């Protein structure tokens, strides 16, 4: 670390003297939203990087204090808008934990169902945009991007049939879920995941048989297991670095303990390892989705009545931390209640935020082209980073 005025930059040992300071973002095709990096280059090699975040800050934690427990879940989905289902789930789980509210078995299973479908949709978005980072909007990357969007579209159609919304759902409520499966939905869901499964084989054939893809990803952006733990990354990043850490396995919630699935782990820690982990997670998620559809218990979908007034949920005094395994890793909420209808304090642990912290450590020494490949492999969603 070197202090340059008010700036703090991570430095990499280098011997030259000709430097170029280049600004990447917040308006940049590969900024994945509004990320800004001030890169110091020596030729094409990055020697220092200063990441700047906060361009999408919307005061979510303050919003959490000013909205009631009934109102906030729909707003929670706007933090990680690519994975709205798990963001909502985190909040309602925190509230249920605090109020010791029972959730019926059917609702638990429905929550697992939508969370896993959401993971598939989110990973599809990641694969498409990541390939676009490496292959360009005017090339093979865009081709894969459009393929992925075609599949993601089918899953969003499922969500639309379920909740009426395509991106931000408001599916969960404290005590259960707001919607039950419509008629014929399960059959449609099976067809969709079967199609995604076959198309995944096509993508793998297109990418893994391609030497250029391999040389662009293998050995690039290596995160060592030590660094991964020190920085506190989670999700596919830490599993790509050889640590089998998955909250669905380590600390099962919403009846995850009833389903059989594997936690994919790769040991090399490079972009390719993270890619492999996510590709296997697609399969595992689809496996869980099928299990849920096979054994969906009958019964009520919520232990509480539907929304009648915004102040109908009142939680006892206390504090709690609830976390779920989102597509990008551990999403957590720390909730403090003073016994009113609104939380006294709410704190988000965004998976993207913690994962993004690793970028400054691994970028130096790489080429400019690798910077976008590495950033893409981290899969940040800036709504969740900046909140």
């Amino acid at each position, binding site marked *: 670390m070197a202090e340059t005025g008010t700036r703090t930059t991570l430095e990499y040992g280098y011997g030259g003297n000709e430097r170029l300071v280049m600004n990447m973002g917040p308006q940049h095709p*590969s900024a994945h939203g509004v990320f800004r990096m001030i890169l110091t280059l020596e030729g*094409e090699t990055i020697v220092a990087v200063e990441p700047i975040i906060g361009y999408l800050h919307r005061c979510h934690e303050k919003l959490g204090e000013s909205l009631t427990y009934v109102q906030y879940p729909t707003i929670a989905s706007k933090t990680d808008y690519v994975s709205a289902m798990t963001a909502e789930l985190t909040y309602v789980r925190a509230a249920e934990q605090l109020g010791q509210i029972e959730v019926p078995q059917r609702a638990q299973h429905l929550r697992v169902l939508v969370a896993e479908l959401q993971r598939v949709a989110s990973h599809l978005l990641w694969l498409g945009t990541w390939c676009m980072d490496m292959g360009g909007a*005017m090339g*093979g990357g*865009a*081709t894969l991007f*459009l393929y992925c969007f075609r599949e993601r579209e089918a899953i969003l159609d499922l969500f639309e049939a379920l909740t009426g919304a395509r991106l931000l759902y408001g599916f969960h409520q404290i005590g259960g879920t707001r919607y039950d499966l419509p008629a014929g939905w399960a059959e449609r869901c099976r067809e969709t995941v079967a199609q995604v499964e076959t198309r995944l084989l096509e993508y793998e054939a297109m990418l893994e048989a*391609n030497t250029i893809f391999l040389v*662009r990803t293998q050995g690039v952006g290596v995160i060592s297991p030590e660094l991964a733990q020190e920085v506190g990354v989670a999700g596919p990043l830490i599993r790509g670095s050889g640590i089998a850490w998955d909250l669905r396995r380590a600390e099962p919630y919403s009846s995850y303990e009833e389903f059989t699935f594997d936690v994919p782990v790769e040991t090399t820690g490079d972009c390719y390892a993270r890619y492999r982990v996510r590709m296997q997670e697609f399969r595992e998620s689809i496996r869980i989705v099928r299990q849920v559809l096979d054994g969906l218990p009958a019964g009520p979908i919520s232990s509480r009545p539907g929304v009648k007034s915004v102040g109908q949920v009142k939680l006892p005094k206390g504090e709690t931390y609830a976390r779920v395994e989102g597509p990008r890793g551990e999403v957590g909420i720390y909730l403090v209640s003073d016994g009113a209808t609104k939380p006294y304090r709410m704190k988000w642990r965004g998976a993207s935020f913690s994962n993004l912290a690793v970028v400054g450590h691994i970028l130096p020494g790489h080429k400019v082209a*690798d910077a976008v490949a590495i950033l893409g492999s981290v899969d940040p969603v800036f709504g969740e980073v900046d909140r």
Partner: protein
Amino acid sequence: MTDVLWTVLPPFLLLNGILVFIAYLTLLERKVAARLQSRVGPYRVGRPHGWLQPIADALKLMLKEDIVPSAADRPVYNLAPIVFLVPAFLMYAAIPFAPALALADLRIGLLFVLAVSSLEVVGLFMCGWGSNNKYALLSAMRAVNQIISYEVPFILVALVPVVLVGSLRLQDLVAAQDPWWLVTYPVIGQLAFVAFVVVSLASENRIPFDIVEAESELVAGFRVEYSGMKFALIQLAEFTHLFGVACLGTLLFLGGWLGPGPAGLGPAWFLLKAIALFVLIVWIRWSFVRIRVDQILALSWKVLLPAALALLLAAAVVVVVRGGGGA
């Protein structure tokens, strides 16, 4: 008077013919790309299949405001698109579309085409330098690196047919491929053709070698500051140059205008083959991701250059063994 007319008219016709043709090549590329991506592509402007799209694009670009960045090097910035475009068109001066259908039937036709073709790097660097933009400058640096690295194997591969035939005259090169095109020449022909396609992809900055443009890293590379008609000129130059190289590949390896049917069909055969080569390049472009700058240079110097030299040597050995042919 008629003399002057005859001097001016054919280049005029060729130039405008190419302009229109290239405009429709962009439509072809967009349609092929759309097909690969399970889309429809341009459709609305001129039904069916958006046949007016290129004209709409050109009109739109002409009507756009022409912005010159305040910090740009004005003369260089303004001149660059023209410097970029002229060599691309000059290539066509020496390209024969049929036995006697060329503006200039040069004895060193191939040399002329190759020389003019490599001039594009000057215009490209002027674009990057004149824009006074860091992305553009990085891109221009990459361009010079890449184009110089790939011109060497490009010329060496193009020399393989020359050695086999024994002439630099493009007409002779094609005539020698009757009835067997050079791409069917055992081993050397196929290898040289593959090498030619790879190297021309690289020297044309097409994906997977389009690090110069690299819009996901360098936004749009050397042309990031260009807008309106200047941008159109740069795009036009790239496509013109690309099709010029496809024409060259057709002449060197695919037997130029040779094909079944009466001799009058020659130009049609020629264009058909060149378009097929162009579509192959488009296909590659829309299915690959981009390679990195250090890898691209390593590929050139460590793989393609030795391979091109080996091919040239093999061709020379063949000529010596069979006696004759080579000059």
